[in-house]
């Protein structure tokens, strides 16, 4: 009996010890450097999720063609999490503990980054991610997370709000509608914009939150249309942005400006779904296809070679994924290792040049730049603000053309 008790206590202690031991693989492998990703390749986030992974793939191919990273080939180990948070969490656990990958890249969207970054933190793995910028991502004061976009989610709609507030008094909208998905990234962006617009006297005519499973937008469109809102700030991921436009169009609702938090920058899929109804729609992003940032033309050319499409469009999320690769590459080269503790320390004290511009991080992994205002015009997504940005290649169109 006593022996059994000792054995159980011993086993319990051993298991506890296992849980506490960082399983980070810090030494350089003899074979390829394996990078683990659990991605939303199917499910409601599949369009942007797939686009991010395409960015990872373009980066990996370029690195391998140039002789690899520290002389090692790079291999992406990818699982499909079906846009489900629980699945993503268990897949990152598996990537670290079973597959014993050397490095990690993040999944699409804050909703999946929030739970999965806790896994990376537990195992002290640097979690470089291009699509999780909601406040909740950084609230837990993690040391190993790095968000690779110019700024955090709350600031995403700032360029749009700036533009609206600078309009001459006779053109300025009087009210706004905020139909939005229940999502941490979306609510951060929407709340930030709504507070600023209300403070400037632009009334909230409609605000409703719908679940990610919402598939019918007819009643939302009817209510937004009858609210008489002059502009719409749709809190969307992708499919719901498409759904909203289709329903607005069917309800013959013609707002003066439309902003979506996410969706319009997944260029190819968005244009394919909406055709010429995309024109006039705006979004906030850190990158545009014809950006003059160093390395961008080569990224765009290689992307279109690997993922050719009839419109020759590169989705914004692919640039985010590619930037994640660039950031990790810089850190690995600088530290001459895949030691995740060293990589995290290095990233906290350095800036990295990416196709989205130069990005640096504070102690919580938050970038400190700002976003661009982008608008679809004649079937192309242009940078329309701020004026000072070198990539600005068109003026904003307001009011937007009818759909």
């Amino acid at each position, binding site marked *: 009996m006593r022996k059994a008790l000792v054995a159980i206590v011993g086993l319990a202690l051993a298991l506890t010890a296992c849980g506490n031991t960082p399983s980070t693989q810090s030494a350089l492998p003899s074979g390829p450097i394996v990078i683990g990703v659990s991605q939303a390749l199917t499910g409601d986030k599949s369009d942007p999720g797939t686009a991010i992974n395409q960015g990872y793939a373009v980066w990996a191919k370029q690195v391998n063609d140039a002789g690899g990273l520290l002389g090692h080939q790079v291999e992406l180990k990818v699982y499909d999490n079906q846009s489900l948070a629980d699945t993503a969490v268990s897949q990152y656990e598996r990537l670290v503990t079973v597959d014993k990958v050397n490095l990690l890249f993040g999944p699409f969207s804050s909703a999946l980054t929030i739970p999965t970054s806790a896994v990376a933190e537990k195992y002290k793995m640097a979690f470089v991610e291009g699509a999780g910028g909601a406040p909740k991502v950084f609230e837990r004061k993690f040391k190993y997370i790095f968000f690779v976009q110019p700024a955090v989610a709350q600031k995403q709609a700032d360029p749009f709000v700036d533009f609206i507030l600078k309009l001459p008094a006779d053109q300025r909208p009087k009210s706004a509608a905020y139909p939005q998905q229940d999502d941490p990234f979306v609510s951060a962006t929407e709340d930030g914009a709504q507070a600023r617009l209300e403070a400037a006297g632009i009334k909230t005519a409609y605000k*409703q939150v719908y679940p990610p499973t919402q*598939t*019918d937008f007819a009643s939302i469109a009817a209510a937004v249309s009858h609210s008489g809102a002059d502009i719409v700030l749709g809190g969307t991921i992708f499919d719901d942005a498409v759904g909203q436009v289709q329903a607005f169009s069917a309800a013959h609702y013609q707002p003066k400006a439309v902003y979506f938090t996410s969706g319009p920058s997944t260029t190819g899929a968005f244009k394919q779904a909406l055709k010429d109804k995309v024109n006039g729609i705006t979004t906030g992003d850190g990158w545009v296809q014809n950006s003059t940032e160093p390395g961008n033309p080569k990224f765009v050319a290689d992307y279109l070679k690997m993922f050719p499409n009839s419109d020759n469009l590169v989705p914004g999320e692919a640039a985010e994924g590619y930037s994640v690769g660039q950031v990790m590459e810089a850190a690995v080269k600088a530290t001459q290792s895949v030691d995740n503790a060293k990589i995290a320390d290095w990233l906290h004290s350095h800036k990295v040049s990416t196709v989205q511009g130069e990005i640096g991080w504070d102690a919580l992994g938050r970038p400190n730049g700002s976003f661009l205002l982008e608008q679809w015009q004649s079937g192309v997504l242009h940078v329309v603000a701020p004026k000072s940005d070198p990539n600005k290649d068109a003026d904003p169109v307001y009011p937007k053309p009818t759909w």
Partner: protein
Amino acid sequence: MSPGLLAQSLVLGVLTGGMYALMAAGLSLIFGVMRVINIAHAAMIVMGAYLSLTLFLHLGIDPLVSMLLLIPIFFGLGALVQWGVVNRLAERDITLTVLMTFGFAIILEGLQGAIWTSSYQGIKTGYSLESFPVWGLYIPIVRLIAASVSLVLLAGLYSLLTFTNLGRAIRATIQNRTSAQLIGVNVRLVTTISFAIGIAIAGATGPLLGMLFTFYPATHWLWIGKLLAIVVLGGLGSLRGAFVAAMLLGIAEQVTSVTIALDWAPMIFYVFLFGVLVVRPQGLFGTVERQSL
């Protein structure tokens, strides 16, 4: 809230309710005849949507045309499944059929995920986004088509049940299986045909669902909850009840989402259901079965 918005949401509610009625009709018929609760009913409807999407994307077949192709295919499959599997189990222990149709639903969901992935899909035809104004209200064409097709199919089903010998046999079987058998109804054949008709209606609803709503393999769980609420509210096995309940809930859902809040809309189904069941446990049009002594 403006009267215009209320009127618009009523119109949307009636059109959506018509669609719900067709979705629930097959479920109600199958329960009426066999006392089988087909948990896989919505998964079969979603299957119809996927097949219609594939025919549309690869062969350019309009969803309304593919509906005509799907009806006989699903009828055949329904007959096969009833005769081969459901019937054997139902004769031994009717409660097992719930578990079995639950299993069917999961298999169909997995199959759809494997073939079409779990990405969101929709059937977007050239007329998908069209609508026309009537007295200041906008009538979305696809919703009008879906509701009209529902009405036509429901009228067909009603005529079949009311005016044909097969219909009389089906109704007799619904009312009392043993007595129907005694007066010479081939209960087994009637049951197989009824089940097949129920599944054929599910197949026919698929293309309409695909045109109106976004769908993905797991969407059927959202739908089966609504459909069960409709058939229970209407009275299990009653076609008329299912129709009235579908209309009520379709309207309640649309009006709630514009007057109260969007997240209240799915809940209103169950609030209605509880309310009715407290007052009328047999549902709106259900009949109370006499207990045998």
